[in-house]
């Protein structure tokens, strides 16, 4: 490899190294071989810098895309699962309570399974949260409250089986803990994990401007060097410089096209996957809360009221109406976001289930307010034409929709990440090859002066 500056004997007076270096450069630039050496050095440096910056920026983006796919989205989904399991456990507990001694094996199993899921999810979330972070605090809080909650539910169950009304008071207390302490903590965890997901997305998708700018600069420098070469020698082609230009162009194209494809895939996975998933998760939680409140209104039997303005309402019926509104809005949003029939069909079906649910609920509430508790109970947890069926259908349809969107996300995010596979290493290698080409080309010219 030729040295950038010729060997000049040391001058007698000592001068600063920098000044001396500049002088030596100036001296070298006065001769053609010196100029050629300088051009070769600058070209090689530009191309190497382009390769290095590309490799660095793209490996950052590829790592972020991989995090989206394998770390932050699974964690966000697992936080949503903790949230859902807790809400579902609360609903199953009230279902079982209403059935009293006739509690079905299914509702008992659901409850136990939910508690287990939540506990396992919390272990996972704890392992992935940074010490001192709000997520860790939320996980710690949930870990503390979960056994407390379960204790209250078990007491409620025992008293209820003996026929004591204090069982209902225990269940209301447990529900209160769930709705006002545990679910907000689970929601906080979910929000934090979603923020982490969004930040991984914004690390993966920005254009690598620095790399692109350096690539264009390197290309411009190569073009200028070739033009100069042509003017001085009248020779059209210098093989080394042409190879270097070709390699740089390929690298630049790969960078821009590869990243654009990756970006499109990731944006799609966000718009059609993550956003739909968030809306669907929220809708599912709303439907679980609504069902829980519907059950609790029959457990409480008017024990708690809430005053809004001048009107007094049963606390649980009031909350039920609010949750159903949230469910309706969530489903409408999910329907608007769904981009194919696989996603929109279950959502539309859930909207239909919700409509029937509202009608049946109005019937049940009328019976309850008319004092026919047995009829109201049958319309809520009965085996036929009860609101329970509607809730189950809403839940099943939302699960189908969630699974579909999860697959969509997986597909598009994988495509996006795969478009960046090999980009860092490939561009680095191409950069080295281009630099070598440039040096080889200049070297050929230099050899003509020897």
């Amino acid at each position, binding site marked *: 490899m030729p040295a950038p500056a010729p060997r000049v004997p040391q001058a007698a007076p000592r001068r600063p190294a920098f000044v001396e270096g500049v002088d030596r450069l100036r001296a070298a630039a006065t001769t053609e071989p010196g100029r050629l050496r300088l051009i070769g050095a600058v070209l090689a440096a530009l191309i190497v810098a382009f390769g290095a910056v590309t490799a660095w920026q793209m490996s950052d983006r590829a790592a972020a895309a991989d995090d989206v796919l394998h770390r932050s989205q699974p964690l966000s989904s697992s936080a949503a699962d903790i949230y859902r399991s807790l809400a579902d456990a609360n609903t199953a507990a009230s279902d079982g309570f209403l059935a009293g*001694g006739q509690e079905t094996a299914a509702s008992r199993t659901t409850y136990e399974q939910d508690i287990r899921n939540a506990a396992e999810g919390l272990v996972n979330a704890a392992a992935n949260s940074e010490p001192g972070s709000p997520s860790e605090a939320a996980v710690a809080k949930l870990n503390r409250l979960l056994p407390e909650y379960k204790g209250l539910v078990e007491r409620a169950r025992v008293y209820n089986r003996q026929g004591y009304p204090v069982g209902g008071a225990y269940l209301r207390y447990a529900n209160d803990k769930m709705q006002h302490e545990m679910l907000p903590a689970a929601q906080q965890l979910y929000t934090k994990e979603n923020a982490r997901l969004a930040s991984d997305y914004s690390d993966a998708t920005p254009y690598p401007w620095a790399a692109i700018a350096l690539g264009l600069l390197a290309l411009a420098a190569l073009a200028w060097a070739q033009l100069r070469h042509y003017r001085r020698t009248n020779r059209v082609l210098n093989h080394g410089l042409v190879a270097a230009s070709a390699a740089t162009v390929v690298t630049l194209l790969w960078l821009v096209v590869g990243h654009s494809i990756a970006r499109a895939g990731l944006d799609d996975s966000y718009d059609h996957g993550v956003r739909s998933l968030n809306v669907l998760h929220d809708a599912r939680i709303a439907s679980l809360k609504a069902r829980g409140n519907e059950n609790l209104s029959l457990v409480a039997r008017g024990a708690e009221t809430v005053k809004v303005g001048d009107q007094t309402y049963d606390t649980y019926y009031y909350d039920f109406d609010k949750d159903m509104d949230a469910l309706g809005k969530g489903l409408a949003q999910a329907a608007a976001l769904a981009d194919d029939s696989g996603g929109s069909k279950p959502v539309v079906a859930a909207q239909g289930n919700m409509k029937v649910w509202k009608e049946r609920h109005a019937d049940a509430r009328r019976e309850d307010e008319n004092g026919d508790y047995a009829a109201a109970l049958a319309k809520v947890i009965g085996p036929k034409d009860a609101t329970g069926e509607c809730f189950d259908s809403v839940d099943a349809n939302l699960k189908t929709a969630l699974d579909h969107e999860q697959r969509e996300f997986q597909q598009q995010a994988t495509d996006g990440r795969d478009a960046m596979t090999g980009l860092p290493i490939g561009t680095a290698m191409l950069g080295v090859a281009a630099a070598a080409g440039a040096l080889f080309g200049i070297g050929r010219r230099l050899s003509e002066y020897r």
Partner: protein
Amino acid sequence: MFVRRLRLSLRGWGGVGAMAVGCVLALAFVLLLPLTQSHGEDGGDSASGGGKLATGRQARAGDCVDSQVQNDTWAPSGADGATIEAIKARKGSARKLVVGVDQNSYRWGYRNPNNSDADLEGFDIDLVHRIAKDILGDANDVTFKAIPTSQRIPALQQGRVDMVVRTMTITCKRLDDVAFSAPYFRTGQQVLAPKSSPVSGYNTTLADKQVCVAASSTALDDVTADRQSGKVPSSVRITVVPNQLDCLVRLQLGEVDAVITDGALAASQAAQDPTVALKGPAFTTEYYGVAMNKKATDLVRRVNQILVDYRSDGWQDSYTKWLSATLGADSAASEPPAPQYLRTS
């Protein structure tokens, strides 16, 4: 492309901003909440309690005295008036007496999930069946409506129920809105605590204790007033819950040391937990009455007639069945006084 990037980065900053706002709000809550709460407990609470008490005891001071309020009712009569005619004229399956009751007061009005048809049962329910039998001929010609405590008076005023039989105390304030029958039960505010507790009643043994009362209850008014006047130590701390039954939950969980509620409901709590007991005598005297619409004079007279008969035949059986286990085999303390019918207009 640029707009997208801007939007993305804005979204990022929006998230950060929201988080920051959230943190600030949470901090503000943590710092300010204790201030507002301690203010509520010390200043606001006792002031409003005192205020409520004042209106409760002094309203209508001219023509109603709380110690005599149970006599403010119409003389008994078996005749059918407009209200009773209207009830009897109801058609088909609607030909029922509509009564507001409680579903959560064990031994008073309670839906037992272990009954085959989950029927209501208790002392109040027995009385309702007797009234229905007398007016409509069949003890089961009743539609029970579960109504929350706060809805007892509105339900009567709006005609949603014919009467309320729901451990409802006769007070001057309530007489402004509804009419009462003669009293059918005597009770009073009482203390409930674990059998092993050093608390012996509504006295100095409550010092430094956490006591539980239901929201907007007589017990809450009394204990806040008595804490001021020195009848109970000022160190008594109060926990307010939505429903009296929630007090038993807090007591069992060790979150409170004692419960104050009226004796009948305290007995209903004691019946669900053999390790707690009523402590000391009742420190007030109150009477339960059947509440009806103010205009239903004929119905009030009829119910008073039914109560006269019920006292001699039925009352004692019902007491023995539901209440003797916790209130004692001797019913003397619970028996209503000999009725006087002082209302004339």
